[in-house]
């Protein structure tokens, strides 16, 4: 089974990288960009019988720092 795990900063947590990207888009002349937030995509191949609890534990214990980040799991 293939997993795609999206790790994003929680709302309200300052994202200097997103702000820099936003700024650079403006410099390139793209108008109308209102906000940019940068995150991570982690793709994993796991055994088909890997259960949701194990996937959730992987995210909480390592893949995301839940002090500052949210995560969302997509099964492909």
């Amino acid at each position, binding site marked *: 089974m293939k997993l795609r795990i999206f790790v994003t900063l929680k709302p309200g947590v300052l994202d200097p990288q997103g702000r*820099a990207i936003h700024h650079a888009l403006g410099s390139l002349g793209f108008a109308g960009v209102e906000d940019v937030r940068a995150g991570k995509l982690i793709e994993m191949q796991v055994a088909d019988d890997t259960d949701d609890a194990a996937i959730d534990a992987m995210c909480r214990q390592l893949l995301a720092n839940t*002090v500052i980040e949210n995560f969302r799991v997509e099964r492909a």
Partner: protein
Amino acid sequence: MKTAVVVFPGSNCDRDLAVALETVTGVKPAMVWHGDTDLPDGLGVIAVPGGFSYGDYLRCGAIAARSPIMRAVAEAAGRGTPVLGVCNGFQVLTEAGLLPGALMRNAGLSFVCRDVALTVANGDTAFTRGYADGERVSFPVAHHDGNYFADADTLDRLEGEGRVAFRYGEPVNGSARDIAGIVNAAGNVLGMMPHPERRIEAAHGGTDGRRLFEGLLETVGA
């Protein structure tokens, strides 16, 4: 007093910390590899050094915090052994859950490498007794991810309980409430971004950092 310095792949301040500890204790620290599962017995202080453990992959300190030796460090911290984390060591201690909050990319996005003014926010911790409350000191910083973040409740609790040990005396990295270093609830774990181990001899440009190690030695009483 016996001390230990934890060494991860990518640590680069481990020897500086070892020199600082040896200078004040007169005893060479044990250098403990990240893959070890046990610490030497009878340690007075455990130091977690700066650097770029595991290349800062995933998040700064994230992989190091899950390495085998950190389980032993957490157990020792739980028993009250003083643990000092500097720079990447602070990031490792937050990732390991030994200190609250997280260290994020500097607000200005730049790597900051210079001397900064600090205020001793609490001169009464196990680590800061060599300083007066409110004293201004100068330590070098060298980091890309020193922007301390915690939710408002956590920040209020840290302030209310006197757990902010050091505060920046000038804009450095966007840290919440200018926090440069904090201690845990029990008071035996300190994490800080600035480098006291780089200020222990006059040749370093000052000795402000030396008093942290001397104070710690006094605390441990060895």
